[in-house]
């Protein structure tokens, strides 16, 4: 399934309403039997007595979208997927809000389980996205993925 390169970035948080609309769009695709969704949510981590109030995301968007496209194509080749949707926030996302949305669909459940964690791990490891954790006192630190 060759597709053109999509822009995965959305400004600010990803709203639950957007997620619901994305789910609802699949009701006409009646060969689908299973969906799996991953949502990344900004944590209010307590670090040295200061609480993270938001993360500000920047990215090298051209590379990020290109690498995401390659990850997407590899997943379509490897797993029996009907649909795949990937969005990541750009700019500021408050603690408690959603910053990352991966949505896969298939006729059956195994492909969605197998592809979901692979996609999330690959995207976190390979896309040049940079999170700046903002504290309530206006200081910050740079997020480090585990």
């Amino acid at each position, binding site marked *: 399934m060759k597709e053109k390169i999509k822009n995965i970035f959305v400004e600010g948080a990803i709203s639950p309403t957007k997620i619901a609309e994305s789910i609802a769009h699949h009701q006409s695709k009646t060969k689908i039997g299973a969906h799996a969704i991953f949502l*990344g949510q900004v944590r209010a981590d307590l670090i040295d007595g200061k609480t993270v109030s938001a993360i500000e*995301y*920047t*990215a*090298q968007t*051209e*590379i*990020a979208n*290109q690498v995401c496209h390659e990850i997407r194509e590899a997943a379509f080749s490897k797993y029996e997927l009907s649909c795949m949707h990937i969005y*990541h926030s750009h700019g500021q996302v408050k603690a408690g809000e959603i*910053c*990352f949305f991966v949505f896969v669909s298939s006729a059956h459940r195994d492909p969605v389980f197998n592809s979901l964690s692979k996609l*999330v791990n690959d*995207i*976190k*490891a*390979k*896309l*040049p*996205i*940079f*999170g*700046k954790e903002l504290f309530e006192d206006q200081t910050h630190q*740079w*997020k*480090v*993925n585990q």
Partner: protein
Amino acid sequence: MIIKVRYFGQLQEVTGKSEEHFELTLDTTASLRRFLKTLYPKLGTMNFKIAQDNKITSDSSPLKGQLIDLLPPFSGG
């Protein structure tokens, strides 16, 4: 050759700028890395990848891009 170098994430804080231009003749991205670490000693302690013309390249790659991006560790998601 005139190249444009862009700094991402915390590298903007280390260099104090988001981008700049250089006129340089260097053979590999490793040479560019050494040049920039000399210019900005604080870069010496930092991990970063180098992309040329929107492709992440290894340190042994010939330096031929006109757009160079310095990318600190990724922390999306």
